[in-house]
């Protein structure tokens, strides 16, 4: 065992084995208790593989030299014109045995060199030098009754592997169990100034004092910290089952349990640093990921000649190991108020994602109608809920705020200093648990009629609704104050004069503070009516027209009604021999009711009876000309074109072009969003021993937005008004271009099978901007430095070449040697400068961003026919 699974300790082996056996035992039990299976209509996990299976590990079987038919020398084509592959050589299966056995074992090793730990390259495939299990595939079938069983496994390392067992009887039942571990490597160059990475409590490393470290000390600690890898490993086990109860009735179910373990970069706010040098704190912390999700699905299905029906349940149960995540800030704070001192606030916190439950029941009935028609009715209801214990508004000890009189005590003469004890306890909450729920409902009707062969008509009507069933009121029963504590108490400790003060509203102390006092339930409902028709104009031409009207009605959003009218015309043409054309054009026009730029008044202290409008008026929530793009008026045009051509009997060319143009009626906000893409593929299959393919791809996207920098915290929301004068307006255009190319070639040189794959992708992003005056800018140019009009290009390029040779070694053995050389280049302007420094004044960054790499993977696999 240890030779097959290098690097796994005996303890890990035991753990692994136990999970495998639990999964298999579950499968066995499931057989008797009617558990079931995943399919294209239900859930995820529709397939399992490792990077070895789809590319690097294949190509040692070879294709059947006899081809696919003795009646014609070349491969046939699918109705759309794509060449079918030639089947692989298949093992001879004696038909006299009760059980026919076949199997293959591919074991070997890889040598990973170059920038072997680079996170960009290793993101989802964790290559390690060492032994690998390319594939273990064992199958047995019993032709007498159609029974079969299969075990399949592949393993790159302990983070990247799967094991799968299936057994069943064709047309009767199928049971499947699996165990899969998959990596997600997020960073290989993270630096931490904290101990406890991976846990839910980060404490500063030795040499750094909470709330009392200088930027130089923090920078030195960060620079001295070694690079560490941040990753999340998913481990998933599942059992799936389906069975025919009769020719018409089937039962299906599946259950899976997924654990995630690891850590990722996160945040940590202690007020702005950009607006006050040597103040505040902006911390990129490292958050633990330790959770599990159980997914359940199951149902009963009837499929008769006249009626069909399905009753389905889906459930999900998410559990996070932690409720909270705490960290320490190394920096001291200073108040904007002169002759005062900030409280020593350095304890930060996050609430982890709450445990949640989800249930959904759905029933559908379909009846065949005259004129080759069908009528389907579906109804469903669901519930998402969570009742996690709420963390206190703040986790500081002592006091927070500004000590104006030097006493250090919260007292009437020191009104900006607050006792943590009034806010760091669950007693300060209006309720102890979240107690939140969203109920969902769904009704659908679908009808299709085909009065004549050449014409079919269809109609769909659907109604979806989500209802929030409770809201949270931010009222502190200990103080009678509404609101919360902003940014771990740091805002109140630095800038209590901000419009939102320390984050809470008090009818007597600060009746003009504008702060959130309740959650916002986002109920919504969608009604969709679609009518369409398909007309086969001739044997070679078909037209399809689809008209769709959607009404979206959210609550507590900028609009309460949004109507989208879409029409789509599709044309399919097969007039020319060997050519299939599909093209479509759709036009959509979206508009809605009056746009309210501030629909959230009820959720703010401005709605409280004792709220006092400040002398300069209540600050405008935002500028009234802004249109959030998910609710803005929009004209959308989409074009698609695909062509499949057979220039020769053994050759296929595919071409696709698509374009999408979105124009938004927004003076401020997103104005345009356009994408265009084109591909050209060529495939050649002259014989079972030779095949080749190549492709070219081009993809571009462009996004244009407009915004405006405000000049003061005024109450005038109008564009061009006092708060938002026109000279603060600015525009930005982001353009991304991606070019890709690749080629593959397979050929049998006698007994040697050669294969090579080349893939190249080059992306370049350009972000440009323009502005009316410098007052739009975050920083005014200082005379010697000008802001220019664009950011450095965002670059990403990957060039990858794989070469493999497979050769038989006798009748049962084959050897495959492969090599993959890959070069990646990346430059993301967000991380410029991070290679030299991760600490900028009171800002601390953990992740250094994606890095370029050169890497090589050399591998060898011995294939044994079992």
């Amino acid at each position: 065992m240890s030779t097959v699974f290098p690097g796994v300790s005996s303890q890990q082996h035991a753990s692994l084995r136990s999970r495998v056996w639990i999964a298999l035992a579950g499968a066995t039990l499931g057989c008797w208790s009617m558990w079931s299976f995943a399919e294209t209509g239900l859930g995820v996990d529709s397939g399992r593989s490792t990077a070895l299976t789809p590319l690097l590990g294949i190509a040692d079987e070879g294709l059947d030299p006899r081809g696919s038919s003795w009646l014609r020398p070349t491969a046939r084509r699918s109705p759309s014109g794509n060449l079918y592959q030639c089947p692989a050589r298949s093992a001879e299966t004696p038909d006299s045995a009760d059980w026919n056995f076949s199997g293959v074992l591919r074991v070997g090793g890889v040598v990973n060199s170059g920038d072997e730990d680079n996170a960009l390259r290793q993101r989802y495939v964790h290559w390690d030098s060492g032994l690998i299990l390319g594939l273990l595939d064992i199958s047995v079938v019993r032709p007498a009754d159609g029974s079969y069983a299969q075990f399949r496994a592949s393993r790159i390392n302990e983070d990247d592997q799967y094991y799968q067992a299936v057994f069943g009887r064709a047309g009767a039942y199928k049971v499947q169990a699996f165990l899969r571990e998959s990596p997600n490597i997020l960073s290989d160059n993270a630096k931490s100034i904290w101990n406890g990475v991976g846990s839910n409590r980060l404490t500063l490393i030795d040499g750094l004092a909470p709330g009392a470290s200088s930027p130089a000390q923090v920078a030195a600690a960060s620079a001295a910290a070694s690079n560490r890898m941040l990753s999340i490993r998913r481990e998933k086990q599942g059992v799936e089952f389906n069975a025919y109860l009769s020719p018409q009735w089937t039962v299906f179910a599946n259950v899976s349990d997924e654990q995630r373990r690891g850590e990722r970069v996160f945040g940590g706010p202690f007020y702005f640093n950009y607006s006050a040098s040597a103040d505040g704190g902006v911390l990129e912390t490292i958050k633990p990921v330790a959770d599990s999700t159980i997914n359940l699905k199951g149902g009963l299905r009837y499929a008769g000649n006249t009626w069909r029906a399905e009753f389905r349940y889906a459930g999900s149960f998410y559990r996070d190991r932690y409720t909270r995540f705490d960290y320490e800030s190394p920096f001291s704070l200073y108040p904007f108020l002169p002759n005062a001192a900030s409280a020593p606030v350095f304890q930060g916190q996050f609430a982890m994602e709450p445990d949640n439950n989800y249930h959904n029941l759905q029933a559908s009935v379909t009846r065949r109608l005259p004129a080759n028609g069908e009528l389907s009715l579906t109804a469903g209801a669901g519930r998402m809920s969570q009742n996690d214990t709420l963390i206190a508004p703040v986790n500081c000890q002592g006091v927070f705020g500004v000590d104006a009189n030097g006493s250090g005590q919260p007292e009437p003469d020191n009104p900006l200093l607050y006792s943590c004890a009034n806010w760091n306890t669950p007693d300060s909450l209006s309720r102890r648990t979240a107690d939140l729920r969203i109920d969902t409902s769904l009704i659908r009707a679908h009808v299709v009629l085909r009065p004549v062969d050449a014409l079919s008509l269809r109609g769909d009507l659907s109604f979806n609704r989500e209802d929030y069933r409770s809201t949270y009121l931010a009222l502190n029963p200990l103080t009678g104050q509404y609101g919360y504590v902003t940014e771990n108490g740091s805002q109140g400790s630095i800038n209590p004069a901000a419009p939102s003060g320390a984050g809470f509203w008090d009818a007597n102390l600060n009746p003009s503070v504008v702060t959130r006092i309740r959650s916002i339930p986002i109920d919504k409902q969608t009604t969709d009516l679609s009518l369409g028709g398909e007309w086969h104009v001739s044997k070679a031409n078909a037209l399809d027209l689809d008209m769709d009207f959607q009404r979206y009605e959210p609550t507590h959003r900028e609009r309460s009604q949004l109507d989208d009218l879409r029409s789509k015309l599709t044309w399919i043409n097969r007039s020319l021999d060997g050519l299939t054309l599909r093209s479509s054009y759709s036009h959509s026009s979206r508009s809605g009711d009056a746009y309210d730029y501030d629909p959230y008044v009820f959720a703010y202290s401005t709605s409280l009876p004792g709220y006092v409008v400040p002398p300069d008026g209540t600050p405008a929530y935002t500028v009234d000309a802004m249109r959030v793009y998910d609710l803005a008026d929009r004209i959308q045009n989409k074009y698609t074109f695909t062509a499949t051509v057979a220039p020769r009997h053994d050759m296929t060319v595919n071409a696709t072009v698509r374009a999408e143009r979105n124009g938004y009626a927004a003076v401020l906000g997103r104005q345009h969003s356009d994408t265009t893409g084109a591909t050209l593929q060529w495939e050649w299959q002259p014989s079972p021993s030779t095949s080749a393919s190549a492709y070219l791809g081009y993809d571009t996207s462009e996004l244009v937005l407009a915004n405006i920098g405000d000049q003061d915290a005024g109450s005038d929301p109008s564009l061009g008004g006092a708060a938002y004068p026109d000279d603060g307006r600015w525009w930005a255009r982001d353009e991304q271009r991606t070019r890709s190319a690749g080629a593959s070639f397979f050929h049998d040189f006698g007994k040697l099978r050669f294969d090579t794959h080349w893939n190249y992708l080059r992306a370049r992003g350009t972000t440009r901007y323009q502005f009316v005056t410098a007052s739009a800018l975050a920083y005014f140019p200082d005379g010697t430095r000008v802001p220019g009009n664009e950011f450095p290009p965002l670059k990403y390029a990957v060039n990858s070449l794989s070469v493999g040779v497979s050769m038989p070694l006798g009748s049962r053995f084959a050897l495959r040697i492969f090599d993959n050389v890959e070069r990646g280049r990346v430059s993301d302007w967000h991380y410029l400068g991070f290679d030299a420094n991760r600490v900028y004044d009171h800002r601390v960054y953990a992740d250094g961003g994606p890095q370029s790499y050169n890497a090589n993977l050399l591998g060898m696999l011995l294939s044994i026919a079992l």
Partner: protein
Amino acid sequence: MLRLVAWSALGLFCQSSLAQQGKQDFAAQLPASSLSGDDMQHSAERLLPAPGFANASVADNPQAVGAKPVGESTCIACHQLEADHFSHTLHALGLHAASKADPAIPVCEACHGPGSLHAKTPTTPGLIIAYTQHAGTPISTQTKTCLACHAGGAREQWVGSVHQRNDLSCSDCHNPMANFSGQGLLAKNTINDTCAQCHADVRLQFGKQSHMPLPEGQISCTDCHNPHGSANKTLLKTASVNETCYECHAEKRGPFLFEHAPVRENCLTCHSPHGSNQHALLVAPVPLLCQQCHTAQGHPNDLQSPLSLGNGPHPDERIMGRGCLTCHAQIHGSNAPSGPKFHE
């Protein structure tokens, strides 16, 4: 094995001698079914029937009026290589077992319709239900034949679906005549390769800097989409985009004490699921992503420039690294009582 050798010899013989010998005559010399007629038939009869194949019958071919079933052995007389490859599929396993339990259950003709007219004039298109280009069988007949056994379930919404309306046949994605894929009897080796036959542009997006692990084989197109049809937009398997995302990202489900409205509305407001050159599948670089909606007074609406980058003269946390998300880290929703602005 002896039988296999015999069939192979017969197959070779078939090619050379069919011209001299009538196909029907030749077929009459073969066993009634490829695997029937031996001891295994008795053991099969003792077992429960396979309900999934119990109702299998000879497919209806409107273009071959008057055709009669001829049995698998007749088909094999000319199509032995196809039969050899087919024998390694789940369809073959089930149909053969069912046929042994009940000889009235057809094998080849369950999908291809009655073969007598085709056997007489094999080059006339349409006399046999065929699933390839230029074979003469209308696509509607092809799909109807498949749905005779596969109606309901994942195929419940096939009629009227975008793939049906684009005149695709089941055999554009599936090739049940051989075992090309590990499961699903696909036309290509993998689900993703099968979809990429027509959706190459989408497949290439998965090569961008941030992408979900589809090229690495950890997920497939059908984890999110049901190519057989769906009552939902873009063939999604769930009633909403977010429900699809929650299948793997259940921590984002909430509900949260403080919701971010566009997040609750649709994950695609900010993310491009098939790939992006930005971090984390984002549709635009931060902070511009956020500045498409946020103009509030204070800090969100300032235009940033390269001067604010880490190598610039005025480093600014609103654009460096993860930008806005460094402070508003709980952007998907916060369950902290002090999290209205997603700080905690």
